[in-house]
């Protein structure tokens, strides 16, 4: 029998199962059990099964949990359902981690490997035959949405980049790109930096690695903890007490609460970074609430379907992107009302989960197809890839609209 994971915070998470009154609200919110009976549902594998666990996870069906967190978010009683599941899975996988889960967890590695050879990597991943081989050997589904590697990394751009000549009236902020924002979604990172600079901030982007989210969601807690703590050091090197802004909603969530709540990381540096972290829409909305956000926006008559990713919703701050986008004259946002796009980080990439992830996302894809006027909006990279692949509609970060409204694009 594997040793129970040894950290006190995991025990606290277990203690939240005391709040469960079996009311089934989490089950009604779960997007995975909605599409497959293979997953017994969050109440079952969470607070219910947890009472039967003794440092051992015998219920392998819990691996169908996508860790989207819709259950925890919906629970009116404060049970950390998704967190319990993540921990139980980490115990379960301790000894029999598939190679695939280890590979997917290594986001930086994938980005680093792909960047210098971007055209080849993209061609390879776009090639059906190559993807079939990948599926057979490591278990990533051949049709799963994969990132498009860029010729330049964000850091590469940042090095050459010249900030506007206007004075930096608002002082410095640290920008946290996240791996995807560093290697794949470079454009979103650039637009975010440009908006911040337009507002008068000096943007500092220290060298930064992976937050460990993908490893965490695959149950690799030790590796993930190392990653997140290293990242904390890197972000802290940008400057003491500075606000840290991110356009990667899920990575921001990892630093704000998941590393602590799911993995029990309880170090001061994480706390320091977590409390300073702002998702970009959240940051802009705070400025607006304080009367400090210029709203001299260029009109943009467009209706956009918007999907708030799970890991943004689970930050418990509502949907600031809707309010921010609707500050732009002419913009009308239609919120998806869907719990999850299906991808849930790396879940939808796996061959045995691919069909489930597509079924989870289907109502969202349909909604996006029906409501879009050329683009859809979503705050997190992997979700954008999933929505774009599922609906065929170009899907961008909310900052793209703001960037345009400030006349920057």
């Amino acid at each position, binding site marked *: 029998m594997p040793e129970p994971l*040894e950290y*006190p915070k995991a*025990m606290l998470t*277990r*203690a939240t*199962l*005391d*709040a*469960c*009154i*079996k*009311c089934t609200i989490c089950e009604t919110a779960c997007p995975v059990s909605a599409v497959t*009976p293979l997953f*017994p549902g969050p*109440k*079952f594998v969470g607070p*219910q*099964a*947890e*009472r*039967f*666990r*003794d*440092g*051992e996870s*015998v*219920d*392998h*069906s819990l691996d169908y949990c996508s860790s989207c967190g819709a259950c925890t978010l919906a629970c009116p*009683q404060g049970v950390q359902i998704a967190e319990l599941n993540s921990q139980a899975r980490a115990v379960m996988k301790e000894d029999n981690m598939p190679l695939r889960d280890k590979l997917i967890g290594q986001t930086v590695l994938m980005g680093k490997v792909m960047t210098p050879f971007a055209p080849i990597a993209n061609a390879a991943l776009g090639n059906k035959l190559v993807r079939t081989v990948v599926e057979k050997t490591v278990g990533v589904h051949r049709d799963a949405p994969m990132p498009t590697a860029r010729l330049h990394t964000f850091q590469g751009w940042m090095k050459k980049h010249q900030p506007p000549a206007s004075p930096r009236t608002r002082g410095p902020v640290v920008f946290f790109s996240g791996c995807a924002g560093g290697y794949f979604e470079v454009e979103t990172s650039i637009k975010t930096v440009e908006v911040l600079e337009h507002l008068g901030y000096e943007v500092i982007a220290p060298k930064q690695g992976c937050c460990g989210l993908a490893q965490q969601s695959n149950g690799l807690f030790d590796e993930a903890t190392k990653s997140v703590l290293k990242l904390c050091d890197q972000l802290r090197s940008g400057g003491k007490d500075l606000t840290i802004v991110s356009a990667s909603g899920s990575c921001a969530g990892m630093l704000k609460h998941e590393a602590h709540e799911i993995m029990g990381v309880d170090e001061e540096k994480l706390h320091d970074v977590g409390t300073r972290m702002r998702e970009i829409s959240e940051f802009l909305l705070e400025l607006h609430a304080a009367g400090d956000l210029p709203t001299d926006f260029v009109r943009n008559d467009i209706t956009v379907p918007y999907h708030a990713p799970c890991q943004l919703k689970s930050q418990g701050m509502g949907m600031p992107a809707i309010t921010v986008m609707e500050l732009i004259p002419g913009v009308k946002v239609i919120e998806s009302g869907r719990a999850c796009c299906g991808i849930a980080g790396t879940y939808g990439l796996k061959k045995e989960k691919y069909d489930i992830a597509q079924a989870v996302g289907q109502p969202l894809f349909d909604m996006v197809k029906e409501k879009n006027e050329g683009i859809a909006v979503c705050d997190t990279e992997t979700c954008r890839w999933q929505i774009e692949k599922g609906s065929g509609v170009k899907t961008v970060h909310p900052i793209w609209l703001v960037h345009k409204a400030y006349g920057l694009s």
Partner: protein
Amino acid sequence: MRTIDTDVVVIGGGATGAGVVRDVAMRGYRAVLLERADLAQGTTGRYHGLLHSGGRYVVSDPRSATECAEENIILTRIHADAVETTGGLFVSTPGDDPEFPDRFLAGATASKVPAEEISVGQALRREPRLNPGIFRAIAVEDGSVDGWQMTWGTVNSAKAYGAQILPYHEVTGIERDGDQVRRVRAHDHKNGEDVTIDCTFVINCGGPWAGLIAGLAGCHDVEVVPGRGIMIAMNHRLVNTVVNRCIYPTDGDIIVPVHTVSIIGTTDVKASDADRLTIPADEVQEMLDSGEAMIPGFRQSRAVHAWAGARPLVKDTRVSATDTRHMSRGMSILDHHDRDGLKGLLTITGGKLTTYRLMAKNVVDEMCQQLGDTRPCRTAEEAVPKSESGKTYVVTHRLEDREADRMEEQIICECELMSRKMFLEEMRGRPSANLDDIRRVTRLGMGPCQGGFCSTRAAGLALHDGLIDVGRANGLLELFLKNRWIGLWPILYGAQVRQTALDQWIFSGTLDIEHLPEPEKAVL
């Protein structure tokens, strides 16, 4: 009226009675067990679930300690499916007597109870919720045991040896022929029928009720004092090891992980009537304070149910009348031939669940001697049915079982993962059972929701299966909820209040249960 002819009648369907009837049957006698309610519904089912290592008695009662240590090994073998080998810890919490651990270790050596001191750090790694202020820790071989499952295993073994097991049969008379016991009369409550059993020997295993039973045979003044103890089940396993305070045995000094819950026990107060045991508020508070001493945050943890049990303690004039803990815990056999001039009646009482088999052996040995037989006891040699594999219980069993069959079977009680098949197997085997009878063997309604979700399912399923009619379905539901409430309202605080509010919302708000048509008759 039914009549039965047998050799030995055993009165009382707790662990001792079950052990006696098994022992008697294995020695080749014809035997009948009479129990006025359900098996193990009395003291056996109302305790904290500890399978003693003996540690608890190494200082206060070394002989009991040795017996416990020996029986622990035997029970783990013959009742494997009812026993979980959790291990135990004796820990000194801040303020506890610093001398006691050394006396404990010396006592353990003297009484041959395996015990090993471990470091505080080791203890905390093993049980991270323990009070970090503990200053000594001693590991012992405590386990936990499901008293109902053990008793059912015992009687199922007895049945295999030809014994008749008659629950819900209340003894109404014990008749003699001169100075020899000849007949026992009983009333079958489920069928409303009287039963006469002709026999040559009666063994009274009535526990706290043993004095009343002896009285039916005209043997008066058998004083058995019910020592009431309350226990509280906490919602989940706060510990996976039995945790004892390393002090002279006192109130609230033990937490036992049993199945999905952890049970804190217990108090010890002289009660006047073993049929009317209360769960006083001050004793609940005392338990919570003790829990807090062992596990900080205990008061914020969720209690799901409480109960009171009655220890049968034979009155011993050497101790004061109000302190039952220091009366004889050891087993007492009363020979009514010596005492009252009546042949063919023995009363056995006292003792502990852990030593039930030994008690049975001793009393049956005595019977054999009186009958002039030399038939050896074999109860230690053979495992009871379903324990033959020797594979002991682990808490993950049911989760594993449901993982295997949940695509084929509905789960009726979700908290305790009881499937439709499990319920129907029990209910079809005993169509006259009430839902509490089923609960004791399946754990129906014993989890956090305390019947909020599963009790209507159980009643509806039994009706659908044709086992009962709709009037009885209503009656069973009412009785089950009434009985659940007995153990709920005394510990209603914290998260269990939310649960109870939702349960009331379900039962009154949504189902309007209080306006169901009345059951046709009171059900049993």
